[in-house]
């Protein structure tokens, strides 16, 4: 608190009353009204019954663990494997997508930082950014066009005789994984690029001079440097993939539901907000725990993210 006050007085002395008030009010609003209160209120909601409006505030309106119980157990007391499996599958799928992104983005980040020069480098940066100006929904749609039963992949595959009946890539979740991996490439490349770029290229050359094979140079010299970028990118990709809704809705096979879709159903189809809130809390807590765990494993701090 004292430090906050000190920061405020520094602002006041440096930028004047108007600016200091503007900063103080805006940041407080943001932190309290936009970030903290909604989460608290969702948390509060998740501990309540789904009551009709006229019963709110009556005796029936008290705290309960019902909503969470129903995530873990069915009505008959057996474990709710359906929903739990959906959560687990979402996390595993998000992890797979993250790993795919790390693998395909690392070489590009390296080429961008230390291989490409001048016009080529510029074109590559523009080329990386342009697809992200195109609506997320349309990007997912593109993959549906690509992988549909009369899509280009099936047509070519059959023409080349690789398979002879259209493969249902959507049901097999291939389209979904591709679409998700595609969707967050940019978020993976740039943090990686920033980290790798800081590496002095002569170090790579020195290591090569000493006769180290390329893979070893990367393992010992480039990767350690790229690590914070990789973790930062991976965190964002993981969180966004696990929280994705549009791509699973558009590209997901009918048999594999994403956990966010479950939440969506509770809210918009069953109109059970408390249940939906509880599921949202479960998603949030699991994701954050998972990410913090990963950060602990890789020894990186949250402050590195977004850099």
């Amino acid at each position, binding site marked *: 608190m004292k*430090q906050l006050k000190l920061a405020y007085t520094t602002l006041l002395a440096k930028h004047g009353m108007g600016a200091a008030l503007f900063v103080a009010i805006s940041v407080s609003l943001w932190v309290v009204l936009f970030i903290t209160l909604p989460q608290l209120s*969702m948390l509060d909601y998740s501990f309540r019954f789904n009551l009709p409006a006229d019963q709110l505030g009556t005796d029936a309106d008290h705290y309960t663990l019902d909503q969470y119980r129903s995530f873990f157990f069915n009505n008959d007391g057996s474990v709710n494997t359906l929903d739990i499996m959906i959560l687990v599958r979402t996390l595993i799928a998000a992890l797979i997508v993250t790993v795919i992104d790390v693998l395909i983005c690392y070489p590009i980040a390296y080429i961008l930082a230390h291989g490409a020069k001048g016009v080529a480098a510029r074109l590559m940066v523009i080329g990386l950014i342009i697809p992200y100006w195109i609506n997320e929904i349309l990007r997912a749609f593109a993959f549906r066009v690509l992988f549909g*039963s009369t899509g280009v992949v099936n047509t070519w595959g059959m023409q080349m005789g690789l398979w002879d009946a259209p493969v249902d890539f959507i049901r097999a979740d291939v389209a979904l994984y591709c679409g998700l991996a595609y969707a967050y490439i940019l978020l993976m490349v740039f943090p990686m690029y920033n980290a790798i770029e800081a590496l002095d290229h002569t170090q790579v050359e020195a290591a090569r001079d000493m006769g180290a094979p390329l893979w070893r140079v990367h393992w010992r010299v480039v990767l350690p440097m790229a690590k914070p970028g990789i973790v930062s990118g991976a965190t964002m990709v993981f969180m*966004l993939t696990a929280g994705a809704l549009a791509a699973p809705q558009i590209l997901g096979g*009918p048999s594999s539901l994403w956990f966010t879709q479950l939440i969506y159903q509770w809210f918009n189809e069953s109109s059970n907000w408390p249940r939906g809130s509880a599921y949202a809390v479960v998603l949030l807590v699991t994701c954050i725990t998972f990410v913090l765990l990963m950060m602990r494993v890789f020894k990186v701090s949250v402050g590195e993210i977004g850099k």
Partner: protein
Amino acid sequence: MNRHTLFGGAYALAFFSFLFGPLVIMATTAFNSSRFPRVAPWECFTTGWFGELFGNARLMEGLMNSVIIGVGVVALAVPIGLAGALALSELPPKLRSMLYTVLILPILIPGVVLGISTIVLWGQITRGTGAGFLYNGYFLTIVGQITFVSAYAMLVFIARLQRFDATQTEAALDLGATPGQAFRKILLPFMAPAIGSAAFITLLASFENYNTTVFTVLSESTFTTALASKVRHGTDPSLSALAVIIITLTLVGALTNEAYQRRKEAESGGRASRSPLYANPVTRALTHPGIVFAILVTVIGGITYAGSQYDSSVCEAAVLQEKLDRQEELRAEQRARIEAQEAEQGVTVPKPDSAFGGAFGGVGTPAAPAAPKPESPSAFGGAFGGITAPEVDE
């Protein structure tokens, strides 16, 4: 070393094919008259899907809503992001990293969670205060989006602030400016370019957002949610036409920006006079960003006009006739088999629209995993995709 360069080049090529391939293919389907977006079989070249796109009332209404919401979000998120960046620059290290974590969190929190928590909170506030007017799709969407969009703006401002030389402010104070004057005349002008890019990024983010908006927008719809419900209902190439438009706008923007950046760089680096491109008055004029923009707009305008005059009805009628003939043929042969199959699978009934746009119409619910999806026609559906399962949009 050469082998590696070769490998690098090949990899980059493959990578960018992955990045652009789907977009190019999608864009191509916009010009195929087939009712289902596909490249092969190619039926007729048409520009009709563009007309269909603009005729879609729900999308156009969503577009209006998106503009209103986007303006609101930019107007609030940019100042909030700036305030966040300024606050971070004055805090002692420990507190700074704490606040940074809090402010960056909304980017990482699943958008679904943000959307839910926003409607839950404002629902409670509304019930508590009776201020029912707050509980509308526009307001809630703006509030919900600001939560994380401000963080994007903040990242832009932090990057810019890091390059600010604090002695500039001190110099202004020393020369007699009040702190407020120094802020307005020195720091804000320095931040101006960042304000521009932050506004652009926040607008784009607001426009694009689906996960949060789909909850907060309530019964309204934005461009993106309308688009999503259209895609989920089934697809037709008018979406590809939309992609063509967006890709074109993006390319025009990128090229103009590139011309601008190049020129600025050349001028500030003093290379302008040495580079032959800028020395020759003709090429110099041609590479002016304004001219580049004008040329692009003219060319695209021309193409659009030519396209709007193009009539593909004759070709389409021929293709339709051919299809009908063939369908008749097939029908005669395989009627029995089709019937058997339909009886076995259950009937493909499009779900009626609920208030939320028939959320799972396109995806199917887990309870009915075998429900056939409109966009994956049965084994022989390839040829009939467009006819046996017509995609109807309201």
